[in-house]
């Protein structure tokens, strides 16, 4: 486990969709966004590999919270979006 609760993280601005068949659980609207780790949820087999019936390494999964207004330009100050994101999609911010 790399990220502790409260860590500021950035979601990788990566688009595997442009490179061929893939299965990605990181929503498009969070790529490149900065948020805060809420908690480590456990380690789970990487669905990006499970989707192709490949051996899947267990990867840490986190709840990460983002301010909502800058993402969708709606909502109020203090509204947030909380999403489950695998560690390999996160980097220090």
């Amino acid at each position, binding site marked *: 486990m790399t990220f502790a609760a409260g860590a500021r993280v950035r979601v990788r*601005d990566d*688009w595997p*969709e*442009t490179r061929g*068949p*893939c*299965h*990605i659980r990181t*929503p*498009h*609207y969070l*790529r*490149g*966004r*900065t948020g805060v780790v809420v908690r480590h949820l456990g380690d789970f087999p990487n*669905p990006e590999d*499970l*989707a*192709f*019936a490949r051996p899947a390494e267990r990867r840490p999964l986190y709840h990460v919270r983002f*301010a909502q207004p*800058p*993402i*969708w330009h709606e909502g109020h100050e203090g509204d947030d979006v909380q999403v489950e994101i695998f560690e390999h999609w996160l980097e220090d*911010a």
Partner: protein
Amino acid sequence: MDEDANLPPPESRPRATHDLGGVSRFLCEPVDTTPHALTEFDREVDALRQILGMRGIMGVDELRRGVEALPEEEYFGLSYYQRWIRAISATLLRKSVITEAELRTAISELS
């Protein structure tokens, strides 16, 4: 947050067809939240997927990948379980669990 202000607008990004969160074209129509009755077809497809999972032939992640691989016009033209059966057939063909000929025969026997 400030450092995110320079990101390109979401509509300009190469998102996948199924990755619909916050896409503005769907903000204009109310979501139909009334319960939908399952058809016999829906139940059969669901049962088939469960059997394939229990036998270790095909997992839910493979199902999702198969649904996500549908071309956009099919993705939006098919019902929920129609997407599933398309994904199941494509996966079973790719893994050589069934052959094209077997699939064609099975479909012709239905008509």
